């Protein structure tokens, strides 16, 4: 026996390393003493403050703890700097509308990616799934109708695209959760498969003849001056953020990423939940594929090779931890706009836009380094 007995404490989290655990005994005496001091303080301090300031303090504490507060600051500084340097060109409705429209597709992928990364997973396939879904949608629409198609065929095409995306996601989730193949490998595989199959279906040629009704409305139309693409992306972001922050689904997503074994022991159906999360990510990639199709009126097969990495970068920039258990959709929103604003600002300033990749790469590494430091500081042995 001794199966259970020889396994010593490995700490609660995937992020806790063995070194930290072994030092725990050595420093725990001092640690206990200091925590006793702090405790006495809280006990003796009278607390007649009203509830309002209490919640305010809690909110403030939570804000400092989230990384997205800092990245938001970076975004604000960038926007202020570009606005001061080019007041006639940068802070205009026209320009910001363009930036937002360009960012819409990446934002939608980023929302799904945030869920996946919070479960300590990763999805490299979203860019390919986007293309695959776009091809399925376009093939459906052009197959049953033509450029002048009515809303019926368009709707069918949209549903087909969404279903295709969700199916790829569910397959990813199944392989990750049930077959226990690492997410990196599963989605690297489906990255190739989805793109390859999309090219097989189209023989490598982009599908054209997408219904004009689709491109004139969702693709390039506006509601109250705001492009449909932006409206849809923001709607997805708000819903995604609410679901993550306030629902049981969101809570369990965090729990699984934080400690999958604990979630399992607590009776959470971890495997099923993971399948749902990856399916959601695929579904949103499908939606992004449809929006891209509507915008460009063609499938842009070769144009999305960097989307997966862009989405992962945005998620990580937004303070979501690759170790799982931590992250927000608001952070991802900020993380999508930092590269977008940088690129736009560089173009307006006349700097080579390629510098954007260099800058974002640096910021990304800095963000992950900050996350590491934060984890080391807060996760005690």
């Amino acid at each position, binding site marked *: 026996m001794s199966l259970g007995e020889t396994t010593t*404490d490995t700490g609660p989290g995937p992020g806790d390393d063995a070194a930290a655990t072994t030092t725990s*005994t050595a420093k725990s005496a001092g640690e*206990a003493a200091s925590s006793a001091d702090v405790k006495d303080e809280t006990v003796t301090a009278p607390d007649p403050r009203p509830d309002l300031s209490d919640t305010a303090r809690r909110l403030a504490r939570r804000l400092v703890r989230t990384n997205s507060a800092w990245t938001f600051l970076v975004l604000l500084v960038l926007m202020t700097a570009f606005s001061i340097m080019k007041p006639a060109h940068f802070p205009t409705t026209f320009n910001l509308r363009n930036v937002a429209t360009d960012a819409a597709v990446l934002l939608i992928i980023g929302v799904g990616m945030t869920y996946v990364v919070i479960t300590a997973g990763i999805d490299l396939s979203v860019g390919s799934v986007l293309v695959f879904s776009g091809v399925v949608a376009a093939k459906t629409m052009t197959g049953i109708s033509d450029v002048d198609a009515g809303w019926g065929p368009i709707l069918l095409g949209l549903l087909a695209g969404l279903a295709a995306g969700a199916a790829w996601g569910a397959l990813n989730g199944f392989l990750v959760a049930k077959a226990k193949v690492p997410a990196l490998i599963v989605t690297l595989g489906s990255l190739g498969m989805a793109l390859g199959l999309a090219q097989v279906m189209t023989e490598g040629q982009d599908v054209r003849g997408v219904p004009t009704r689709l491109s004139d409305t969702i693709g390039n139309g506006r509601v109250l001056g705001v492009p449909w693409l932006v409206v849809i992306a923001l709607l997805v972001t708000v819903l995604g953020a609410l679901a993550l922050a306030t629902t*049981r689904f969101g*809570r369990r997503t965090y729990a699984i990423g934080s400690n999958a074994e*604990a979630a399992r022991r*607590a009776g959470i159906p971890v495997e099923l939940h993971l399948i749902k999360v990856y399916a959601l990510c695929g579904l949103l990639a499908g939606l992004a594929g449809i929006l891209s199709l509507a915008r460009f009126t063609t499938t842009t097969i070769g144009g999305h090779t960097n989307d997966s990495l862009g989405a992962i970068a945005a998620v990580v920039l937004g303070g979501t931890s690759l170790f799982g258990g931590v992250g927000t959709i608001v952070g991802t929103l900020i993380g999508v706009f930092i590269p977008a604003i940088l690129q736009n600002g560089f173009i307006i300033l006349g700097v080579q836009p390629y510098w954007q990749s260099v800058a974002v790469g640096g910021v990304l590494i800095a963000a992950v380094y900050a996350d590491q430091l934060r984890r080391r500081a807060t996760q005690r042995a």
Partner: protein
Amino acid sequence: MQPLLEGRGLVKRFGQVQALRGADFTVFPGEVVALIGDNGAGKSTLTKVLAGAARPDEGGILFEGAPVTLERPTDAQRLGIETVYQDLALAPDLDGAANLFLGRELLRRGLAGRLGVLDKAAMRRRAVDAFARLGVELQDIDAPIGTLSGGQRQSVAIARAVAWADKVVFMDEPTAALGVLQRGRVLDVVRKVRDAGTSVVLISHNMPEVLSVADRVEVLRLGQRVATFTAADTSVEELVGAMTGALDEGRAA
């Protein structure tokens, strides 16, 4: 007195290894009973069997005098039996309330609840109560569990088990990784659990700790119960003797 939970003649094999060879175990209502034994004596296996995490090959389990089958942990949980695992089954990135309600989240009433919206205020309130009842003091109830000290985390793990178990809580080496002060606090929590009427099965290697907190001690050796003691009438030497087999007469069961 009618035992609350009883294992009789439990046998559990893992391939060639026989972890339990007809082990008996008894838990009475409202007591702290320590389960001790050397490495490999079968403590963890016995705990798993009684908590529904493993099925015995032979033998039976009685709950309040009636035979029960525990296919999985949820069966035991339904009877009011919970386990605090050695490797802390907590989510370090979630706060105390979220951990307390892990897998048993409270939802809001009405439409919001149907959509799966959490009732965070109610969970937080009940978590504060649950911690207060056990004397667990957290400086910041909203802090992720991973930022707490080991003792506080262990206390949260215990509070979590106690919040759902009104009958028996198994604690597998709850103080193993803790320093002296924190150890004392966790043992206070164990006593408070007992005083609230929930029985505690304490698996421990630490003899002075066992004698200070337990009411009774049951000793396991080579997969069998070899002795039971009343904690007040025994000594570390006697316990060690029973564990190692040096004192085989014991007060055999």
